[in-house]
């Protein structure tokens, strides 16, 4: 076996947190090697160590059999490492060519190296089918194109190892497939590809070998052909997990919530939601799918009263809301709408408040917080203890600040608060983003229980699998428009993918 990259006993701590503990890893030349683990398992830290963005506290890194000292990204690039970061490292005001040139300008004046850089760019884009216009501004490119620019950047110095950190999170399924084709060509060219992901399906589809991380440790190495999603999930979580959600058919009743010609234009005059129509009935889940940034956030925030709709109307449990009404989240909540915000850190919780205080956010003037002018901390404490027990929040300590809980348990606090108000309508945004597999299972079960109890649920998620396994009907947004609503029984990745790219339902089917 010809090893391109080898890590020996690499450790890294941030303060008291051990992000990586004695990591060993060997990546074969000319293979696609997956690294899978839950959010917070230490995958990104490990990649940043290899790429020189962080320095390991101890341990060795070997490239091509030689021990090397990687002190900065410049060192890593010199050793033939390229990296496509989870958050793109592109300057939006620059052209594609300028972005590719950055760091390897080829002379004091840009003129000196521009020709050679352009040639190299065109050569790479032809060889690996990375089509992109070198003179376009990056701000004008879509996400898929930006990713191609990142790959060209990573390959420009003749990288022998290419690291991709969660590359498919922002892509449509078709764009992801294109990316995988590119990765296969690279592999056949002798490049070792390190693919970081938390999606089991991607690991199974494309990798040759896979390493599994859990809580900063490497818990296993497998040949992909000799493992199963079940086994990988178990290794990731450390116990058996149910991958499939057990969903009984819905029994939809009366319409609880509907939007008619809903439009939203932002302060800059950009139309972000365009003529959206839908209805949600009691006892069903309407999923909203789409590539992130296609209006989901605006939709959620408009429905929750955080933004004002600018045209059309909403009907919330019989109350009509139009652009003329000055709504706010409070009014919407009082109508009987629960809201689990997409971004729990900024909209769902006050991170520096205690769990018990977070448990009454928005309900601070109800009996939950005591009947008088002053807070009744005994009642608040009791309320929090009860909900923590019921929703299995760990650690069950009401006095702990919200920021000290893990992602999954923070989300459970928000869910406990919103669910126990018995909402007639529930808006759920990214319920399992940054949440570990165990908690995902729990959250999904709770959502279905609420549905069966007769709640009308609108679910926004960028995880297509989540949408498909929970929703009864699926609405697809593209560019702020409703591309179509289909029954989840008719939905497969192919159909949804085409719709997410903007193809109307009739054309897609």
């Amino acid at each position, binding site marked *: 076996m010809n090893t391109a990259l080898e890590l020996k006993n690499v450790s890294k701590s941030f303060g008291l947190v051990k992000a990586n503990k004695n990591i060993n890893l060997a990546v074969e030349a000319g293979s696609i090697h997956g690294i899978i683990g839950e959010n917070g398992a230490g995958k990104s830290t490990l990649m940043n160590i290899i*790429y*020189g*963005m*962080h320095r390991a506290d101890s341990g060795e890194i070997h490239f091509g059999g030689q021990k090397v000292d990687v002190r*900065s*990204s*410049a*060192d*890593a*690039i*010199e050793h033939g490492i390229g*990296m496509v*970061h989870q*958050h793109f*490292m*592109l*300057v*939006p*005001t*620059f052209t594609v060519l*300028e*972005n590719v*040139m*950055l*760091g*390897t*300008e080829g*002379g*004091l*004046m*840009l*003129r000196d190296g521009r020709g050679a850089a352009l040639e190299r760019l065109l050569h790479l884009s032809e060889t690996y089918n990375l089509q992109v216009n070198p003179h376009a501004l990056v701000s004008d490119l879509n996400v898929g194109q930006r990713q191609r620019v990142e790959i060209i*950047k990573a390959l420009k110095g003749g990288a022998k190892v290419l690291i991709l950190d969660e590359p498919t999170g922002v892509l449509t399924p078709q764009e992801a497939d294109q990316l995988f084709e590119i990765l296969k060509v690279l592999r056949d060219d002798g490049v070792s590809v390190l693919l970081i992901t938390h999606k089991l399906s991607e690991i199974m589809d494309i990798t040759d070998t896979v390493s599994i991380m859990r809580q900063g440790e490497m818990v296993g190495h497998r040949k992909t052909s000799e493992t199963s999603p079940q086994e990988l999930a178990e290794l990731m979580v450390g116990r058996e997990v149910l991958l499939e959600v057990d969903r009984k058919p819905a029994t939809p009743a009366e319409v609880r919530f509907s939007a008619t010609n809903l439009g939203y234009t932002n302060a800059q005059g950009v139309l972000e939601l365009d003529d959206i129509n839908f209805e949600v009935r009691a006892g069903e889940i309407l999923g909203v799918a789409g590539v992130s940034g296609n209006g989901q956030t605006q939709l959620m925030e408009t429905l929750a009263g955080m933004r004002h709709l600018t045209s059309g109307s909403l009907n919330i449990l019989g109350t009509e809301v139009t652009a003329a009404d000055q709504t706010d989240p409070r009014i919407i909540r009082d109508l009987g709408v629960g809201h689990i915000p997409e971004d729990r850190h900024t909209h769902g919780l006050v991170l520096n408040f205690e769990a018990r205080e977070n448990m009454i956010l928005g309900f601070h003037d109800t009996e939950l917080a005591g009947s008088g002018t002053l807070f009744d901390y005994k009642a608040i404490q009791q309320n929090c203890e009860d909900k923590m027990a019921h929703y299995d929040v760990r650690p069950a300590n009401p006095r702990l600040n919200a920021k000290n809980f893990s992602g999954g348990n923070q989300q459970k606090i928000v869910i406990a608060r919103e669910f126990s108000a018995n909402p007639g309508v529930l808006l759920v945004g990214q319920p399992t983003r940054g949440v570990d597999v165990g908690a995902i299972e729990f959250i999904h079960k709770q959502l279905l229980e609420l549905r069966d109890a007769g709640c009308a649920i609108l679910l926004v998620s960028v995880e297509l699998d989540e949408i498909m396994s929970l929703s009864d009907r699926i609405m697809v947004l593209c560019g702020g428009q409703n591309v179509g609503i289909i029954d989840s029984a008719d939905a497969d990745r192919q159909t949804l993918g085409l719709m997410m790219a903007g193809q109307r339902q009739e054309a897609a089917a």
Partner: protein
Amino acid sequence: MADFLYQLLLSFDATLRIATPLMLCAMAGIFSERSGIVDISLEGKLLSGAFVAAAVAAVTGSAWLGLGCAMLAGIFMSLIHGFACITHKGDQVVSGVAINILASGLTIVLGIALFKRGGQTPSLPRDDRFTPIEWWGVDMMDSVPVIGTIYRQLISGHNMLVYVALLAVPLTAFILYRSRFGLRLRAVGEVPEAVDSAGISVTWLRYRALIVGGALCGIAGAYLSIAQGGNFVREMSAGKGYIALAAVIFGNWKPLSAFMACLMFGFLEAATTRLEGVDLPLIGEVPTQLMLAMPYVLTVLLLAGFIGKPRPPAAIGKPYHK
């Protein structure tokens, strides 16, 4: 009519003289702000430059030595700013204000201690200053109508630092848009992560931007105390650093636009002096106070978003954390 033209020409001439320190400081501001560092400390660097230039020139009798030391003083102040907000990731506005206060106090204290003239430096003999340069052929050009006068009054007859300032503008634009340093500088002010991941040191890049800016402010300071004037006077920068910063914003962080903004501010001030007590047709006598307030009124209007929307570098004011 000819008299009016002559008056106008003199106004343009005054505009150029007033705008010189603004131009130099604005270019300094562009270097610093394009790299992502808010540079409210232009004022303090300008003032330190002015003091050091006058003090060194007074002691040594050399304007050139004064200029050199003024640049070093500007760089030194920049390095303090950099140490606080690049190395230690402090708040850039707070650090900038601190530098302005430091410069204001220190120049007076050192001035009194060294020269015992209430904070002023001794007046320099004419030979120890940067004096106006008469260009070749001025007398010959005099015979040509209009152009001859323009040549004598506007183009020729300024001290060397005015020409340095005029050169600094295209040079800044050239460096910013055509050189490797400029590409990296613009990138680090927008997305420092991209620069870091390309294997370039964000810290060193930003320090270099501040050093260039400090040197430019030093030249501007020297212009005030040993070229335009002949000695240092307390608080002689009188808000020019802030006006230059406003010009940077007016110019949307672009060298040529900022240059135009500097000229506009310069012209307003020049016009103020000329229009004092003059009756204009239709308007009547223009209140001087109104004219004096114009740069500030314009700045407020701009910052309130009335005149186009400025687009600052995306990463400005944010310390870079890995």
